[in-house]
């Protein structure tokens, strides 16, 4: 079936299978592999995108449900090839190892900082509680968020 949606500010169309997730549609149909597929059950957050401005797990959204809606993926955050400030902060703070969790963390962090530019540690922990990282460790990730906020 056909769906029409806005992705990273651009009107896009995709031919999707009725039962597939938005994550699959983004990665396999729309050539946006930034959002990662790790668990497909909402546990890890590596597939996080903004749906109408709200962070969601794209693995838990039916692609057909995104028809007519607006999606922002991690690819939509960088401007003209320059790293987004949150991306730069993650790189500078050493908060990236394998990088699999990073796109989801970037999307969640960017959302947090737009709502709360100077978050407390509790707010950061809460905002990132749906994002798992198996290698870097959360200390450096928290450093990266604090660095992004400070900048």
């Amino acid at each position, binding site marked *: *079936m056909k769906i029409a949606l806005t992705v990273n500010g651009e009107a896009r169309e995709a031919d999707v*299978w*009725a*039962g597939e*997730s938005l994550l699959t549609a983004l990665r396999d149909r729309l050539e946006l592999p930034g959002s990662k597929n790790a668990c*497909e*059950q*909402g*546990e890890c*957050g590596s597939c*996080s995108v903004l749906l109408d401005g*709200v*962070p*969601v*797990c794209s*693995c*838990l*959204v*039916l692609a*057909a*449900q995104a*028809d*007519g809606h607006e999606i922002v993926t991690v690819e939509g955050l960088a401007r003209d090839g320059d790293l987004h400030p949150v991306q730069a902060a993650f790189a500078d703070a050493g908060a990236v190892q394998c990088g699999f969790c990073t796109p989801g963390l970037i999307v*969640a962090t960017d959302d947090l900082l737009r709502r709360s530019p100077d978050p407390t540690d509790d707010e950061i922990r*809460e*905002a990132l*509680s*749906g*994002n798992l990282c198996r290698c870097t460790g959360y200390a450096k990730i928290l450093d990266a968020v604090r660095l992004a906020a400070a900048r």
Partner: protein
Amino acid sequence: MDVLTPRTLEEALTLKAVRPEAVPIQGGTDLMVSLNFDHLRPEVILNLNEVAELRGWSRENGVLRLGAGLTYTELLHGEVAEALPVLAEASRTVGSPQIRNRGTIGGNLGTASPAGDALPPLLVEEAEVELASTRGTRRVSLGEFLVGPKQNALSQDELIAAVVVAPSRQPQTFMKVGPRNAMVISVCSLALVADREHGELRAAYGSSGPVVGLVRAPLDEVGSFAERVAAAASPIDDVRGSAAYRRHALGVLAARALERCLA
């Protein structure tokens, strides 16, 4: 497989009447897991996201009508949270921000899991479920709606339209036991209302029996209430905890909840 996306409740009910096998999807936080892992291959999916009537909430003569599509995030703050703090507290414990942004009370009722965190709060607040079909709407108490583990009283042609509740506005709280603070299915949970107005204590336990259960007692029997809650539950041993642990924990939660609500 096919996805049908109605724009109005009327259209949704007509589709459900014509295609009773259609599986509704709201936030997808339960259903998508089944689809992704091939546990379910429905012929037709009924996407309720575009049905405006299922969204939001309204109030009439002090009675709240919470649309089936109300998300946990929407339940966290504002007037509904003020009227139903026990439901707001429970919503705060659900999954992660991403899950709370999509997961709905209608979906929690649809899944009807004994671990559903919206259920104990709605049970102690004596909520009713509004079920709609092209035949009309009916209201059943939440207790009647939850007929078994992951089984509810929906007929094939019906949709959950709303949850209707007259907030007690009495001291109330929700507690949940789990291995960590975020992203946990409860080992056991408890919602409690100390209803001074009606001289009654009400507690509902989750993850401690085939369905979420309600226990009532007169307010003056507060001394034995925690024990009574623990005794009423029928927990099982599973990967998340033993029956004995759950029963013990429920007693502890009930005692703490009473302390909090009667202070």
